């Protein structure tokens, strides 16, 4: 039996309320890998992510976790998920990411605050700790979310659209920071993104999913990101160019009546 995996989906059907979105899928995520999850809007990316996280049960099959089970997930949700009526400070927000290691009914101890401070330093925002989360800029919020996900000392980092609505400078800064933390802490990363070039640049493996087209493919970037499959999934004329050791994706004119 292969025991080197961190997460494994074997003959799993994902979906909601006993309704499968796709035929059964197989996926094996190893320790230290950086996976991207891409696909069109409504293609099933979030369903796959939530199934992996154990937030929704698979319609068929079982998600297996490796020898580290129970896995500690560091989850970076989308910035828009939070209600700004809450006057939560940056430190309080990051502390919530630590709650995976603090049982219900127990308060935050001194050693927890030490880890929280370290996380703020890792994402280079120690001076923002007392600022209200709602008053931060998009980039600062993203760094806070990243610190929140690291506070639980996770085995795997799950990022949901970490660069959504960011300018190119903020996007590059946050992705480079994620890459740096991944290397330093030898983390496994799973990132949902709409930005194919970001995924191609930073991830080493990718899942491409589109439930409407009954399409699921996983593997290395080079295996999955071909002009033909990208054109099929996104309904555009997509070309893939090799630039040194990375690939670059160019979207052309609309190829068919598919959503994007």
């Amino acid at each position, binding site marked *: 039996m292969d025991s080197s995996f961190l997460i494994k989906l074997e003959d799993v059907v994902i979906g909601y309320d006993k309704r499968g979105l796709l035929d059964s899928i197989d996926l094996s995520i190893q320790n230290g890998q950086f996976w991207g999850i891409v696909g069109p809007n409504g293609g099933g990316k979030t369903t796959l992510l939530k199934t992996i*996280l*154990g*937030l929704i049960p698979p319609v068929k099959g079982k998600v297996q976790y490796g020898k580290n089970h129970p896995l500690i*997930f560091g*989850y970076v*949700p989308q910035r828009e*998920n*939070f*209600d700004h*009526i*809450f*006057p*939560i*400070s940056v430190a*309080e927000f990051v502390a*919530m*990411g630590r*709650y*995976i290691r*603090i049982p*219900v*009914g127990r*308060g*935050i101890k001194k050693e927890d605050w030490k880890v929280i401070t370290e996380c703020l330093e890792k994402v280079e925002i120690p001076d923002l700790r007392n600022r*209200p989360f709602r*008053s931060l800029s998009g980039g600062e919020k993203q760094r806070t979310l990243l610190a929140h996900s690291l506070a*639980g000392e996770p085995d795997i980092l799950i990022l949901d659209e970490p660069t959504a609505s960011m300018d190119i400078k903020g996007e590059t800064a946050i992705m480079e920071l994620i890459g740096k933390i991944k290397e330093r802490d030898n983390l496994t990363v799973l990132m949902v993104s709409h930005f194919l070039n970001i995924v191609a640049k930073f991830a080493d493996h990718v899942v491409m999913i589109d439930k409407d087209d009954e399409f699921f493919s996983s593997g290395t970037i080079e295996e999955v990101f071909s002009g033909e499959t990208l054109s099929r999934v996104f309904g555009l004329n997509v070309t893939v160019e090799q630039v040194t050791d990375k690939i670059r994706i160019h979207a052309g004119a609309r190829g068919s009546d598919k959503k994007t």
Partner: protein
Amino acid sequence: MDTSSFGEFIRSYFLWRDPMIVGAVSGAICGFLGVYVVLRRIVFVGAMLSQVSSFGVALAFYLQGFSALSLFQSLIDPFALSLVMTGAAALFFALNRVFFRISQEGVIGFGYLLASGIVVIIADRITHEAHDIADILFGSAVVVDPKEVYIVPAVAIVAILIHWIFFKDFIFVSFDPETARLFKYPVRILNTVLLLTVGVVIAVTTRALGALPVFALAVLPPLTALFLTERLTLVFIFSIMIGILSAVFGYFFSFVLSLPTGASITTCASLFFLLGTGWQGIRRLV
């Protein structure tokens, strides 16, 4: 109001001491729990629960009129029945998503309207207790039942104790339920306990003060506190203080100006809210 009315107020402390204690404690605990109600954007849950509590009291008065039920007199005590009804409503609200999946607003609207409709029908049937029912709805009672001087603080202490233990958890499931579920926190249980504490406190304070001031104390102090500070712990502290001040000033003006008590408390809480908006306006300008 002149100095002689203030002197008369001080001299009559034996008249207002008990209602003032009950009012201040109610203001503190409603102000505290109201922060959750406001932050979770379910302000009308306070109105619904206080109305359901009134419904329980009115129903008890109505049932007491049936001689066939005389054997069960102790069971149809207004306080006990309002507590049971409010607890059941809070439970229904907390578990609605599991069984019925009705929108939160839908459940609040349904509960409020059903309770209000039945209270009016019962009030029409038991005309001799209509004054008592009006007191419960609008909080016109200047005096309180001596038992309430003990019941209200006791319930408040239990509620504070529960919230002391689970403070971080209640905030977590209110702010970020998705991550709480991912972390295997018992989100449903915590939400139910939180809403039950709100329900029980509202039932007890509604019996003492009336539905209108209780709704006001559960909504206006937290809203005002949110104008004053950006820190969560301070929001709770300010809300408790504004709740106490609203109740105390409300009783004071009710006493010296012969105003209906519930309306006076509600007006005081509203004035604090207006001051809070003014303060926020000044801060933005500066």
